[in-house]
């Protein structure tokens, strides 16, 4: 698997030879990561995507935080929180939150299933180039890990005011963050493009 590529950050031409397992190729001029060898990229990414989907469904089906003041208990799921913002007239913010914490992560998983499941069974999905490009374009907008910090800050903010009850799905959220980032990291786009080129 040797190839000639240009550094995406400084345009320098490199000749990349086959990398040793877990090896990394860096640009000799600006230090950017050109390519990383990722063992079993296909299987690992698929496994993480499946785990992420299960956790995602759990995380969104149950409340993640509850608030108790006196006898009143109020619980919230992610969707009801977004709906509440929408009703209050903050439609723009509601849509932004919906995109970054629900739609983008979900679409990422679906794109990966579309690409990786057929590849795993030796077939080539028809719209692979478009889907893979789309996946790379939406990547910066998935912000699950930032949302987790948001939960932490809110808990501390509210702790003085009322009793906080951690919801069932809080733990799914926590696990989801790690699985989602593992999913993103283990994907080797270079390998998929190469497979596409070979099979076409």
């Amino acid at each position, binding site marked *: 698997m040797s190839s000639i590529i240009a550094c995406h950050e400084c345009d320098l*031409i490199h000749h990349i030879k086959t990398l040793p397992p877990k090896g990394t190729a860096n640009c000799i001029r600006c230090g950017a990561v050109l390519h990383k060898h990722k063992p079993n990229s296909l299987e690992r990414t698929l496994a993480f995507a499946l785990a992420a989907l299960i956790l995602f469904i759990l995380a969104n089906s149950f409340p993640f935080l509850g608030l108790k003041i006196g006898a009143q208990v109020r619980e919230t799921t992610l969707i009801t929180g977004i709906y509440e913002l929408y009703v*209050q007239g903050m439609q723009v*913010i509601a849509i932004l939150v919906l995109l970054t914490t629900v739609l983008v992560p979900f679409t990422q998983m679906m794109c990966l299933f579309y690409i990786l499941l057929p590849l795993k069974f030796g077939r080539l999905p028809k719209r692979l180039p478009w889907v*893979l490009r789309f996946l790379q374009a939406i990547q910066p907008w998935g912000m699950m890990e930032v949302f987790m910090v948001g939960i932490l800050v809110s808990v501390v903010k509210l702790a003085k005011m009322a009793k906080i009850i951690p919801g069932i799905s809080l733990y799914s959220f926590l696990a989801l963050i790690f699985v989602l980032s593992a999913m993103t990291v283990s994907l080797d786009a270079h390998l998929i493009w190469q497979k596409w080129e070979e099979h076409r």
Partner: protein
Amino acid sequence: MTPVFQTARDYGLISCHSCHLLCQSTKQPADMQCPRCGARMHDRKPNSIARTWALVLAALIFYIPANVLPITTVISLGKAQSDTIMSGVIYFIHTGMWPIALVIFLASVFIPLLKLIILIFLLISVQRKSSWRQQDRTRLYRITEIIGRWSMVDIFVVTILVALVHLGGLATIHAGPGAIFFGAVVVITIFAAMSFDPRLIWDTEEIIHE
């Protein structure tokens, strides 16, 4: 002696933005498509400097109302109290919760401003064709790409507070107009970082060699 670096541009090649395939540049690069992935190809991101400047200036303008207007309004027992980002930070310092104050200050005030300052610095240095510490400037660019998303923390906090604190007359939290401007700052700065092309930092090198 420093080695003479050869870039894709020197060979008349274009690297695809999305699949990194190297292709021969055609006479009309504007409507060139990558033969492998079908993405539009360009030698450098189109109008990178002008676009980034426009987005940076827009973000700077929105940064003011984002910090001046209230981001949340707490209505408790008939009394309304509005909070801006900074007044929230000051409140936490006064109540002794400085770690939380630090998190909010870093994510909401410091990071967006730092990102804008770095981008302005990169834009000016590229426009002056500076060849000063190119590796470090590329590193700065990488930092702006990574840290931008963390500014969303405050938007998420507002979402959670609004959803949870909804106790009728006892206490209700509403999102304020500052949240919209703040969200705009975050989104616009992410687009600004995307539209900047770090290869411009290195393009001066070739001019020197010629």
